[in-house]
């Protein structure tokens, strides 16, 4: 018996049906709602909105700012997070017809996938979190509502405030600005990245003065290596932030003077569109600087752990005392407080590249510090058409949330750096308040697209362990980057015709 005794007639029938099916599939529209041009908001009512008697439920995905769920069992020494709950309860007491609910994001799932599903079904939580770096694709798809008309209003809950968005630091406002100059979200706190180091290890290695320049840093790594530690944590697997952060720290120092040439629309934010246009003009990337970055990167590789080309669990290695330092964000502070490692620790700024290494180096301190906190909130774009009255309530709730005392109480719990003027964070974050010369406006190819980020990780995985020549490396890098630009243009053909 053969399963495949299909006669020619059957095959023709199958092909015919397939063709019909494809045509049918092509003719039916996808389930997306008609996309309104981005930036159309309804005329807003005076805030706070007086509502009808029915209860409005607002689902809020607060990300790291969310209070601990009632069903969670705490570790010894762990503190239940309640700050945002208290803020919400105070609000609900004043507005009995509004119910604030915490939406718990399904852990382990991919946020882009989740967002696509939610926006297609139009059942997303009323307030959702998204990192400012993914802002432009979301704006394209009308997933984020423009805040401008509310941003201009005074915040009734903050005395003396005449314009709501005046409350926030520049970095926070810039981060939410779309390519068209409008504001597509609110950003109340931020994050920074420093190098977390093991003070006991430094002592054992005999390092008395903390390294500030690149040469001193390499010297410290040598001392650590001799003392039997793994000096510097690195992992190059796709999706790991290490190469992203290293790129930001090093490359920004190398292109200090020319970096804002890439800011084509002049909004002090380097967006994907800026990068694409700069590439077309041959301005970005500065390949000489990129090559120098590659060399410096390679200089660090002897100090990386075994297997750095793949995925490694750096926090675990560091906690075991084998790894002396790795780059960590300030969001790790609350964990360090609640579950201290068995050794001393402190934060170190990224080394400064001196003129003997790169003549054009500015010898200034760069910091990755910006609007990548938990309290970056957006509102689904479709609500502007489907439920404008609800949007007013949402904005009112956000205004209440952004009162400096409230932001401060939340940041003290989360360990994030407030970007709301007048709000205070944790004293342990003092290193993050130290002065720096510039917060990097551009980090890595990730700024352009997720695909470009993957491609960059791949590039480093190929280059670093090999003995590729400079020419071979540049050729590969240019080829890779150019292909990525093509992909972005394919999805946004209107960018270059403007």
């Amino acid at each position, binding site marked *: 018996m053969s*399963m*495949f*005794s*299909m006669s020619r007639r*059957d095959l023709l*029938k*199958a092909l015919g049906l397939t063709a019909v099916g494809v045509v049918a599939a092509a003719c039916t529209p*996808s*389930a997306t709602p008609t996309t309104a041009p981005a930036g159309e908001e309804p005329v807003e009512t005076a805030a706070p909105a007086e509502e009808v008697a029915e209860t409005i439920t607002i689902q809020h995905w607060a990300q790291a700012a969310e209070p*601990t*769920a009632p*069903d*969670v*069992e*705490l*570790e010894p020494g*762990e503190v239940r*997070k309640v700050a945002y709950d208290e803020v919400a309860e105070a609000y609900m007491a004043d507005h009995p017809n509004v119910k604030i609910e915490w*939406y*718990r*994001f*399904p*852990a*382990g*799932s991919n946020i882009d*996938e*989740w967002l*696509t*599903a*939610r926006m*297609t*079904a139009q*059942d*997303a939580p009323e307030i959702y979190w998204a990192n400012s770096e993914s802002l432009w694709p979301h704006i394209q798809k009308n997933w984020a509502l423009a805040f401008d008309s509310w941003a201009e209003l005074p915040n009734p809950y903050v005395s003396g405030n005449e314009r709501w968005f005046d409350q926030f630091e520049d970095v926070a406002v810039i981060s939410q600005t779309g390519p068209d100059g409008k504001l597509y979200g609110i950003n109340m706190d931020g994050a920074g990245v420093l190098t977390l180091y093991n003070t006991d290890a430094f002592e054992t290695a005999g390092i008395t003065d903390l390294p500030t320049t690149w040469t001193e840093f390499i010297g410290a790594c040598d001392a650590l290596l001799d003392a039997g530690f793994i000096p510097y944590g690195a992992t190059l697997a796709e999706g790991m932030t290490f190469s992203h952060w290293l790129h930001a720290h090093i490359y920004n120092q190398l292109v200090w003077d020319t970096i804002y040439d890439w800011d084509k629309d002049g909004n002090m934010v380097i967006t994907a569109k800026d990068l694409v246009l700069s590439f077309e003009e041959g301005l970005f990337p500065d390949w000489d600087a990129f090559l120098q970055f590659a060399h410096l990167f390679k200089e660090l590789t002897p100090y990386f752990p075994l297997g750095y080309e793949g995925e490694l669990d750096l*926090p*675990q290695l560091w*906690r*075991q005392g084998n790894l002396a330092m790795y780059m960590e964000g300030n969001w790790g502070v*609350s*964990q360090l407080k*609640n*579950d201290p490692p068995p050794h001393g620790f402190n934060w170190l700024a990224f080394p400064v590249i001196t003129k003997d290494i790169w003549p054009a180096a500015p010898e200034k301190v760069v910091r990755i510090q910006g609007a990548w906190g938990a309290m970056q909130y957006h509102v689904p774009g479709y609500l502007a058409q489907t439920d404008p009255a609800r949007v007013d309530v949402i904005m009112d709730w956000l205004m209440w949330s952004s009162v400096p005392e409230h932001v401060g109480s939340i940041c003290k719990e989360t360990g994030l750096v407030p970007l709301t003027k007048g709000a205070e964070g944790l004293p342990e974050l003092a290193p993050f308040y130290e002065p720096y010369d510039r917060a990097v406006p551009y980090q890595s190819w990730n700024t352009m697209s997720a695909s470009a980020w993957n491609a960059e990780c791949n590039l480093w995985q190929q280059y670093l362990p090999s003995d590729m020549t400079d020419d071979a490396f540049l050729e590969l890098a240019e080829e890779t980057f150019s292909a990525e630009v093509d992909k972005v243009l394919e999805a946004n053909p209107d960018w270059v015709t403007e």
Partner: protein
Amino acid sequence: MSTTDMTHATSPQRIPQPRRRLRIPGDWVLSAILGLLGFLTFVPVLMLLQLSLKSQQQMADSMWLPTTPFRWVNYVKASRVMGPYMINSAVFVLGTVTVSIVCSVFTAFALARYPFPGREFFFMAILGLMMIPGILTLIPRFVVVVNMNLNNTYPGIWLPMAAGNQAFQIIVLRTFFASIPEEMFEAGRLDGASEGRMLRTIALPLATPILTTLIVLQINGVYSEFIWPIMVLSDPTRYPAILGVLRLGELITQRDPGAQYAGYVIAGLPLLALFALSSRAFIRGLTSGAIKM
């Protein structure tokens, strides 16, 4: 093919021993080899169990050997988190399996026993489905579900997952139904029984072992599926248990891989119970020899 051939397939057999040759104690060697292989196959389960009783610091100290004190609190934590989701999983499983088995039994029976026009074509169409990579159809399938207003509903989980399971079940059941000798049905037809009645009274009882096997395998599959529920369900309280396990890795402010492993063990317990209850039938179904092509 006679009825006696059917019965011998259900009772396990042993090879008769050669009488005229000197035998080495073959069982010892066999047992040693099988024991080693079996142990190696079983090691991940042992690892899972001992890891589920560690704290993060214990894992940092000694990953591979059991450490005392055993952290039973991992299980307490995990079960608190997963409890409400277990019921959701049960509902998903019941619905999906029911729809899937009912549809595939009917279809397989029709394909096996009746020479209707287009039979081969339909079967090929079903087989062809298995070759379409699942990821490819994920988003379009979601769009269909939204268009039918089934998002965030139970049927939105049951129906698409049942659809995905049809192909394998139909292939196996078709082979099985085709192997039932015609004589059994002849008798029924002579008595004037309808086709449906014959399916119910003759074919189904014979198919019980293989159906048990298919049901157990499907329960296993549905239970561990998490990509589809995340897309369809916008209400996190409806999530299945497997998502609860994933949440354990992220839920609490500090990472607790031990509790997550405990979560996997807890997630496996219903399957284990199911398996224990049905193992005879499950194994009999697999060993009935009907699973082949």
